């Protein structure tokens, strides 16, 4: 049977090979015909396999009945061995054919390939100069991303995945091709350990390592944008440990060359010491409050002992207007999610309340006379410089309620203080409504009102978004999206 499948494939491939010159000479008609033949051939092979399965199944049923008749259930005497063997042989054959059929399915391809597309239609009440957004005011249509996901096993010891994203440049509209993730992960380390290496989203907090199109709302929460700088992308190493306890606990530690917004490093320099790397960790746990109510909680930390003038020398501004330079990055997070996931009908009804509180405590070198600025006549220390830490808080909290297999809605509250000046803060309120026709086709309508503080000098603004996201090809129901 497998030989037949192979023959069919070989035939299909040779048909394709033959059809190439035909296409070149413009004989589209012929190509169509050949395609039709290939299709028919494929269907014939499938049909034959089905017929064979059915025939075998019939034989098997007959034999099994025979066997049952021969051995009454009450007597535990060994069955007629010859018949048993025959049954087993037939059984194996049926299995083989069924397996061969499964192999034809695209899910069996290695690697698995999927494509995600995401378009954002929006209206902003104010222009980009007043919102700080990289999208224009007024009406806007934006192909935020076209994402290619490829994943598969590397060998018995590791798997790997690549996420390539061709996102439209916010200004020019040109496609910007980039590798969002390209990582290898071990699958066979002892002691419940998993090591991830390469480019990936480091585990900090709750939504930091979720791709934009998988967030419960249209835009990334302000606190994550301000303190992490978008998705928590890093080039590095991460180790996760599941302690052998009855209680679920997950511990992750990582080290990387960058984390989130600072990739690529603003100033890699020509020689780096270990303390210029980013170090992060996360500890999380989970409780079944009742069979239907769940609680997950975690703490996270990110530390970069020497940020190597991230953002540029004297490019930042202190609360009083003095120029300053970042030299140490510290971020702590506390997050929890309480959810109602009814066992019986969670596809139709659920409730999620997620909250993350972030505390940024970056260290800066303040330089009131701007003498360190590379543009100053003789750049250097003049003695007025001093170290200062700025403690800023940020928080987002959202509630999503699902009342129908396809419909859910919620409310997101955002609050964030500028990491350089905690008097400069912003609040945002976003109700959202999601219509998921299937889990590969989803529309979301969101309204966002943003209030900036007087310190920022920005007026309040309003925006309406309509997000349309789709997936073709392989899709995963991943652990992080649960």
């Amino acid at each position, binding site marked *: 049977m497998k030989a037949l499948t192979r023959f069919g494939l070989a035939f299909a491939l040779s048909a394709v090979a033959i059809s190439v010159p035909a296409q070149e000479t413009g004989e589209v008609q012929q190509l169509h015909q050949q395609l039709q033949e290939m299709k028919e051939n494929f269907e014939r092979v499938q049909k034959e396999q089905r017929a064979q399965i059915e025939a075998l199944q019939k034989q098997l049923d007959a034999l099994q009945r025979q066997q049952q008749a021969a051995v009454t*259930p009450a007597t535990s005497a060994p069955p007629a061995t010859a018949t048993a063997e025959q049954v087993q042989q037939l059984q194996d054959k049926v299995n083989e054919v069924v397996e061969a059929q499964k192999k034809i399915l*695209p899910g069996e391809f290695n690697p698995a390939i999927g494509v995600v597309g995401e378009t954002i239609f929006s209206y902003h009440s104010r222009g980009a100069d007043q919102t700080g957004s990289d999208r224009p005011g007024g009406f806007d249509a934006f192909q935020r991303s076209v994402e290619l996901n490829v994943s598969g096993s590397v060998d018995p010891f590791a798997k790997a995945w690549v996420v390539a994203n061709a996102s439209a440049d916010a200004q020019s509209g040109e496609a910007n091709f980039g590798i969002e993730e390209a990582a290898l992960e071990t699958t066979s380390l002892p002691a419940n350990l998993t090591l991830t290496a390469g480019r990936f989203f480091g585990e900090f907090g709750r939504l930091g390592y979720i791709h934009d199109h998988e967030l419960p709302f249209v835009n990334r929460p302000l606190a994550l944008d301000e303190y992490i700088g978008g998705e928590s992308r890093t080039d590095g190493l991460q180790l996760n440990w599941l302690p052998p306890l009855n209680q679920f606990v997950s511990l992750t530690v990582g080290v990387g060359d960058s984390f989130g917004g600072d990739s690529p490093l603003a100033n890699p320099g020509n020689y780096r010491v270990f303390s210029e790397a980013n170090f992060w960790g996360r500890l999380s746990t989970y409780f079944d409050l009742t069979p239907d109510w769940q609680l997950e909680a975690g703490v996270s930390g990110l530390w970069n002992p020497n940020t190597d003038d991230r953002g540029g020398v004297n490019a930042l501004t202190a609360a009083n207007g003095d120029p300053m330079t970042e030299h140490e990055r510290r971020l702590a997070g506390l997050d929890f999610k309480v959810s109602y996931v009814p066992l019986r009908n*969670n596809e139709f009804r659920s409730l999620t309340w997620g909250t993350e509180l972030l505390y940024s405590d970056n260290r800066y070198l303040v330089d009131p006379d701007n003498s360190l600025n590379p543009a100053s006549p003789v750049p250097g220390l003049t003695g007025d410089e001093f170290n200062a830490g700025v403690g800023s808080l940020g928080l987002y909290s959202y509630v999503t309620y699902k009342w129908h297999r396809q419909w859910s809605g919620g409310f997101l509250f955002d609050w964030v203080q500028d990491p350089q000046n905690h008097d400069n803060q912003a609040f945002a309120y976003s109700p959202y409504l999601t219509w998921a026709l299937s889990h590969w086709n989803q529309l979301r309508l969101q309204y966002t009102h943003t209030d900036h503080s007087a310190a920022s000098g920005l007026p309040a603004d309003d925006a309406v978004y309509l997000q349309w996201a789709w997936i073709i090809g392989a899709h995963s129901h991943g652990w992080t999206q649960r």
Partner: protein
Amino acid sequence: MKMKCLRSLVWAAVAAVTLTGWSAQAAPIRIVTTLTDLADFARNVGGDHVEVFSLATGIEDTHGVPMKPSFLPRLNRADLLLLIGFGCEHAFLPALIEASKNPRIEYGHPGYVDCSQGIDPVGVPKSTDHSQGDVHPYGNPHYLLDPVLARTAVSNICAALVQNFPQYAADFTRNRDAYLAQLDAKIAAWEQAAAVLKGVKFVSYHEHWPYFAKRFGLDYIGTIELKPGIDPTPRHIEELVNEMKAQHVPIVVREPQFPEKVPALIAKQTGATLVKLPIMPGGVPHTGTYIEMMDYLIRTMVGAVAK
């Protein structure tokens, strides 16, 4: 001094007895199953040698068991993982296996036991893109609702136990034979009781019942869902209602994890009887075991026909 010596000796003796007792009492084989039918079979076949935990409690949808982190410690220590197969659990199991960090139960390893081995699936989709929905990618996985196919699953479970723990082979085989004998007697009784169901037409919410219908001779007309896992459009409901009226379909089956509103409306519009049927043990009260559940299914369907 002597007293002290004696005391030490006594302690040593107690310790020795305890330790040998401990080692003689081997740790039970830890089995995790996705659904409750498999847990029931595993308990029957494994007997005292096994400790079974089912991810589903019985009231969930077979395709939608919530991925709880509390499952991970269980899966991490499992010796065997029993699953339905045919992609039935694809929305929760692959991610759980991956997160559980237990190589014994990964796909392709002896602890990964796909109970569908030897079962020929019905309803294999002609095309495998998502226009057909995604929850039945390799054909219909609800074969356990046919008790004859359940026999195959029981045998598969026994074979996996024997393969992984040959030291108890005799016990497992004996337990299997005893359980299959019990099941065979029941099958005969169910077939007899279900004689009145021959040719009876019905629809259901999800495509759970092709194997059940085939076994007991019912005529399965269609589903309320547009495709497995995809909710109906108004037009699909309209077409289904017309079809049911034209064919005089007397029964609408609702599986308890689906909302009652639409099935109730369809039953009302067509004059059919609405019947609530569990899809695995524990789905409704008094269906704790597979046999109790099948009893319930036959009894309820026969009762509905008698109306």
